[in-house]
């Protein structure tokens, strides 16, 4: 089924208005050689059929709503009001709010989102969203390089390896240099930076879950005029000292833990927040409060001179479509929980993860890799390769033991726990793991 409303009469009347007889005439300006290729696609389906087909495909997956998997995405509980409100057609089917008089819904929601992200990160300003945590990191580093007019970047190995891969792709493109500082004992060691370095990047809690002490890096970076990009899981900011308080200049991260399902990896949203002085370097959309001709408060897109549709080749980024709806879900989630609820979710996640770590570390052949203190994810060294263990667990109905890339060591697996896990789940996983090892 297609969704065109045109009846045969409509088509006839409209063609007639154009002095045409046949729809093919609409494509008369195309070279003949190109016209009407034979597309080999499956036969059309009705709505009923596609849903039946997709349900069959869905049945080939096992849901991960109780997964002990992390790496930045985790199964957190999303209050029912979040999807219900985000799915309202006005939010769902609008585009970029270029016409503010009829877009106050999205604009004000972004303004509030920006405020929440600024509050979480302890920084001054957030933009309206970026694609994901990795893109946010890349944009954050490019921002730092623009500001410092330098081309050197130092990144801790504690930063999510996929984020570092994306960063490398972006930096290669502009010819910047990327140096990685290896973790020691699961933590980022102190480092020194030379004057070519414009951005230093660290993540806390880091990829292995450990809470870093960012102070030495911040101090060393600032001493040499470099800016600090701090990657933070927003859930951790419910409890942990925010990047701004640590002295970071730029905070970035992935918003999935705020009100979004895991979606097999996407979409979620990336956030970026910076100090006031960096605002005009920010990529992407920004919403500002203003007033209308009658003096009423309202909101508009602001500082568009940074953006591609105005500045073209000199724009701060090429980004146009961002992650508005998923960021909106993040804001709704935070609004629904409030500061206390948000802290309680984080605390529950921490408590479950620590209980799980203790439980699993008691299994024979298992070794704790992530040092204390850690947050809600942690790595273990397993007696067997992680993919095998993960497969063994999956057969038993458990999702856990995400393989950690070999650069961090052999047979490492990442575990996470959240407020969605109950005591029974922890015990169930431990028992299953024991079986897999047996």
């Amino acid at each position, binding site marked *: 089924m297609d969704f065109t409303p045109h009846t045969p009469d409509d088509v006839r009347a409209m063609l007639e208005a154009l002095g045409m007889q046949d729809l093919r005439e609409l494509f008369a300006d195309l070279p003949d050689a190109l016209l009407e290729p034979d597309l080999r696609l499956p036969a059309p389906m009705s709505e009923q059929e596609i849903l039946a087909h997709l349900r069959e495909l869905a049945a080939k997956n096992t849901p991960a709503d109780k997964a002990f998997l992390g790496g930045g995405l985790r199964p957190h509980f999303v209050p029912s009001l979040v999807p219900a409100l985000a799915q309202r057609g006005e939010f769902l089917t*609008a585009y970029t*709010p270029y016409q503010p*008089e009829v877009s106050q819904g999205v604009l004000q929601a972004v*303004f*509030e989102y920006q405020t929440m992200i600024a509050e979480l990160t302890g920084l001054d300003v957030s933009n309206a969203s970026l694609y994901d945590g990795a893109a946010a990191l890349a944009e954050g580093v490019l921002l730092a390089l623009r500001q410092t007019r330098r081309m050197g970047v130092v990144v801790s190995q504690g930063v999510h390896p996929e984020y570092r891969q994306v960063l490398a792709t972006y930096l290669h493109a502009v010819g910047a240099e990327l140096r990685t500082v290896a973790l020691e004992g699961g933590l980022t060691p102190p480092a020194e930076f030379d004057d070519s370095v414009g951005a230093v990047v660290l993540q806390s809690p880091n990829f292995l879950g450990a809470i870093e002490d960012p102070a030495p890096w911040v101090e060393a970076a600032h001493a040499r005029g470099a800016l600090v990009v701090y990657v933070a899981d927003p859930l951790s900011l419910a409890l942990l000292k925010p990047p701004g308080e640590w002295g970071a200049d730029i905070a970035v991260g992935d918003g999935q833990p705020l009100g979004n399902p895991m979606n097999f990896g996407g979409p979620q949203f990336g956030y970026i927040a910076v100090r006031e002085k960096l605002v005009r370097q920010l990529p992407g959309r920004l919403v500002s409060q203003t007033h209308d*001709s009658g003096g009423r408060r309202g909101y508009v897109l602001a500082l568009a001179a940074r953006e591609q549709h105005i500045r073209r080749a000199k724009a701060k980024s090429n980004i146009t479509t961002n992650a508005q709806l998923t960021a909106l879900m993040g804001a709704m989630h935070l609004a629904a929980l409030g500061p206390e609820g948000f802290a309680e979710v984080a605390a529950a996640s921490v408590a479950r993860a620590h209980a799980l770590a203790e439980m699993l570390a008691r299994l024979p052949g298992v070794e704790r890799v992530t040092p204390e*203190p850690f947050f809600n994810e942690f790595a273990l060294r397993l007696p067997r390769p992680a993919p095998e263990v993960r497969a063994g667990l999956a057969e038993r109905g458990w999702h856990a033991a995400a393989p950690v890339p070999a650069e961090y060591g052999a047979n490492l697996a990442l575990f996470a726990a959240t407020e969605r896990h109950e005591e029974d789940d922890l015990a169930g996983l431990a028992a299953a793991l024991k079986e897999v090892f047996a």
Partner: protein
Amino acid sequence: RDFPTLFERSRPGRRGTRPPRPPEVDLAGLLGAENLRSAPPRLPEVDELTVVRHYTNLSRRQVGVDTNFYPLGSCTMKYNPRVNEAAAALFAELHPYQDPETAQGALQIVYELQEYLAEITGMDAVTLQPAAGAHGELTGMLLIRAYHESRGEGERRRMVLVPDSAHGSNPATASMAGYQVKEVPSGPDGEVDLDALRAALGPEVAAIMLTNPNTLGLFERKILELIDAAHDQGVQLYYDGANLNAIMGWARPGDMGFDVVHLNLHKTFSTPHGGGGPGSGPVGAKAHLAPFLPVPTVKREGERYVLDFDRPQTIGRMRSFYGNFAVMVRAYAYIRMLGAEGLKRASAMAVLNANYLRKKLAAAGYRIPYDRLCKHEFIAQPPEGLKALDVAKALLDYGYHPPTVYFPLIVKEAMMIEPTETESKETLDEYVEAMAEIARRGLEDPEWIAHTPYRTPVRRLDEVAANRKPVLRWRPEEA
């Protein structure tokens, strides 16, 4: 009355959705006292009803395709079928790191969508990793760059040609990909000036980025010669797929000779725009560029679908995980519902609507700078004496979302109108009536039009103030 922010609705100690009672835990002990924040973030403290009412009423201060005709040029604001949302919800609870054996259905969708998009565009390989159109553009340009580098021409080819009618994201992308950008002028017919382009071609040129049909809604009729000329010089052709809705099933960028193409699933393939995203920007490449695609892609091995990381020449990763999967599911559903015939019909009706509207608007007194057969969109200008901005604002009172205005830059007072195929003839006819009335009334009564809109939740907003002294977050003292 002002519409309050959530922060103004906040009251200390008020609670919304409560999590399960958290386990008793010594956070300072577990996390380190020195690591704890000194004060909680100042999030709004509101009850659930307040959250629901706030966002419900915010949405009522917002229009979308679901509420109004929304002919925003170059954005393809077609109907977003609600079945897409039901489809995506079936796959929401999957983790990218779960055992791929437990996500075979999801991987099958990725794999098949790669195949479908390759077929629709006439390309050899597709990556679904890019999160949006501009992200796809960057991916595509990096493929081209890696290709030139692999042939030892990376140092030499430092220039990308972009028509002056191009989307701003094209030159911005070329810059991000490390290229210098040179604008190529359009000819008087609105198409790329082929002679000027030939003149600009040279050994330093890496690529040309083209949109076809272009942002004037015109098909580049000399596309085959143009591409031949470029290929002769080893220049790669990039196809900006923002306008693919014009030609689906009628012609393929791959057949035109393009080397790389990106698509916008949220434009052409009916996934919702979400107020600005998330979208998805798959990239298709010809075989010679396929070795450079980002990893992972999904391949089929017998009956199984596996993540393929084995691409030694890859440009690397463009995004965490596998891209905007939930958007892919929606596009997959759409393509499977329409099939080849449906896609072709969608484009035909999109082009029919655009040409019909062009003709009618011309009759209603609007100027059509390139008044010939257009594709899915076209450019109009208001009658002499009216500003595009004023017409746009007046339209708001008539219940329409305005077209894109002041773009492309090469046309003064441009209004870029893209009706899409999901709007009916009556809607177009009524829209033309409104446009005619606005023109008439605006010319008669300049004061009236200068102060439109009158019936929107807010009137014209002071953007100058917002740019001079931006207020980018709520603070108690500035409220």
